[in-house]
């Protein structure tokens, strides 16, 4: 598996002797994430006797599952050398439009469709600004982040829009004892992991992120692929927004406020390289659990939220330092 995910090193240097397999496996950012995850589990169990309860951890994960789904796609976007900070705002706006539509009497399937299309459109706006107009994605999506949530606020005001009783509570539906949002996340991880790790399309994403000009010369339609990624981002964000609506039972403009930070954190903690070209779905998958366990462990131990902010900030900085160090080692 690691052989598959090992990024292609485009280099004209002489071939060095192959590394021993254990080194290839151990010196990887995902390994770091896994070690942190195990440490976090230990730490959290020591911190509070109430923590180590599988059902509770799963329930807590559903609170972040929507962000985690989006983070998977975000990982692919970052690998392709771009970034999208607008998905949390996208979630809010598409959920608002969806809730608004169903409240206006539009049948549920069509209302869901409206929400998803809205998400696609928002993804397309990002894509056009970034790809056609060549404006850096970081600043475009800071702009659209403000705009999308602003529009949601104009539509919904400060009110919350209710969804019907039967639609509420997707997180309480269990399949084999696992809440549905977690199942969706698992399935998405496997599918996207396979796409990114084993298909030509997936390899092309890495090549674009490593060197877009070279990728284009090699015949990769980089613009089309990036366009597709931004659209996927919009679609998944909208779906995540609607799932959140079902979990909360109501939609407000501040749904998922600040979620972009958590998503970026998941991708970074999982070893995705911020400049593109490196990263895996497995890493983000592990990082999502790491993040949930760290924050849940501290919350159940009644640790001040301030300390949690500090820990998250330190984790982010430490994880990129480690990722950079690991990549600069393996590059040699």
């Amino acid at each position, binding site marked *: 598996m690691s052989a598959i995910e090992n990024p292609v090193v485009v280099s004209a240097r002489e071939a060095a002797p192959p590394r021993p397999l254990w080194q290839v496996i151990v010196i990887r950012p995902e390994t770091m994430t896994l070690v942190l995850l195990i440490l976090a589990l230990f730490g959290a169990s020591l911190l509070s006797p*109430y923590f180590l309860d599988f059902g509770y951890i799963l329930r807590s994960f559903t609170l972040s599952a929507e962000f985690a789904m989006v983070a998977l796609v975000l990982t692919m976007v970052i690998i392709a050398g771009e970034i999208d900070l607008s998905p949390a705002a996208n979630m809010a706006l598409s959920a608002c439009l969806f809730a608004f539509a169903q409240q206006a009497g539009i049948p549920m399937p069509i209302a869901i469709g409206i929400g998803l299309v809205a998400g696609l459109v928002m993804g397309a706006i990002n894509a056009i600004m970034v790809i056609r107009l060549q404006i850096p994605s970081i600043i475009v999506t800071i702009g659209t982040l403000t705009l999308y949530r602003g529009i949601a606020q104009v539509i919904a005001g400060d009110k919350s829009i209710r969804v019907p009783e039967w639609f509420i509570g997707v997180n309480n539906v269990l399949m084999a004892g696992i809440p549905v949002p977690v199942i969706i996340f698992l399935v998405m991880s496997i599918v996207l992991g396979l796409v990114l790790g084993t298909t030509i399309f997936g390899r092309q994403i890495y090549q674009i992120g490593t060197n877009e000009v070279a990728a284009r010369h090699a015949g990769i339609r980089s613009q089309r692929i990036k366009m597709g990624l931004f659209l996927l981002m919009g679609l998944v964000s909208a779906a995540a927004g609607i799932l959140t609506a079902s979990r909360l039972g109501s939609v407000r403009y*501040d749904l998922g406020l600040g979620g972009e930070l958590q998503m970026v954190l998941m991708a970074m903690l999982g070893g995705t390289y911020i400049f593109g070209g490196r990263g895996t779905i497995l890493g983000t998958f592990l990082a999502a659990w790491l993040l949930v366990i760290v924050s849940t462990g501290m919350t159940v131990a009644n640790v001040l939220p301030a300390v949690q902010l500090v820990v998250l900030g330190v984790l982010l900085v430490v994880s990129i330092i480690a990722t950079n160090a690991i990549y600069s080692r393996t590059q040699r």
Partner: protein
Amino acid sequence: MLKKTLLAGLALGMAMATTVAIAQEPVKIVYIGKNTGNPYFDSITGGFEDACKSLGCEFEFVAPATAEATSQIPFIEAQIQRGVNVIAIAPNSPDALNQVLDSAKAKGILVLTVNGDLVGNESHRDATILPVDFTKTGPNQVELMGSMIGYKGDIAILSATTEAPDQNTWIAAMNDTLKNDPKYKDMNLVATVYGDDQPEKSTTEMEALLSNYPNLVGVIAPTTVGIAAAAQVVQSRGIADKVHVTGLGLPSEMRDFVKDGTVSAFQLWSPYNEGWLAAHFAVGVLGGTIKNEVGSTFEVPNLGTITIADKNAMNTQAELTTFDAKNIDEFNF
């Protein structure tokens, strides 16, 4: 008399016998505030802490970093997991917490809303503790404003957010009072604006009020952030003799403005008593000495007889407390 005491003692003994399991372990109460760093909640927490000292319950205060609608959910989940007996909460949203509060109730946890209610979703909590009867807040504020401006002139309201449920109840009552009570017929409400409970935004709105309505003589700000911002504007322009500011504010934030004459009087209740009452009520209900039913009454030290009103609501005091230069130093919250 003796007979009555005996009887009460007997009843108490029986109550203790039936609830011996709870009596052995102290009642665990947690209060979930809107957000950390909000000076208002320090005072409520103080009430809880002192009550728990005398009643022998365990108390903890937790709060999310931001007051956004869903930020309290992980905290409620965590408290359910910790196995507390009572969750008291100042809800950040009237409906986004329904699901998780239901699961707390299903675990047998007593769910109280303290200082703010789930308006329209009252079935998702067991009881609510509010500082005063909110139907009287509007008229009280109008009367205070009227007394400051001689019951004559243009006034405006600077509120929190457009959908803030409490503020909107009060504003509706203010409108009603101004329209229907002949005493206030010369007072003219020219505008209601919203500062979203942010100091910067509230200041801008206040400044816009002053330039839009040059004849303004009074501003009612029924929110602690709004009144402080309005007072700051009036103070910085030195127009305290022309524009009178009042509303609901925290003595700790307003002390300077009262002392230098910018604000002659404002109102609030005692947040401390909310915590005090909530702790007594919770321990009483779990101990079986208080029935959580509409119409039943119970005694709370320092507060007298408390009646559980419609929708299981309780108030700590009947009328708002008015703070002015004479009494403001007696209050330390």
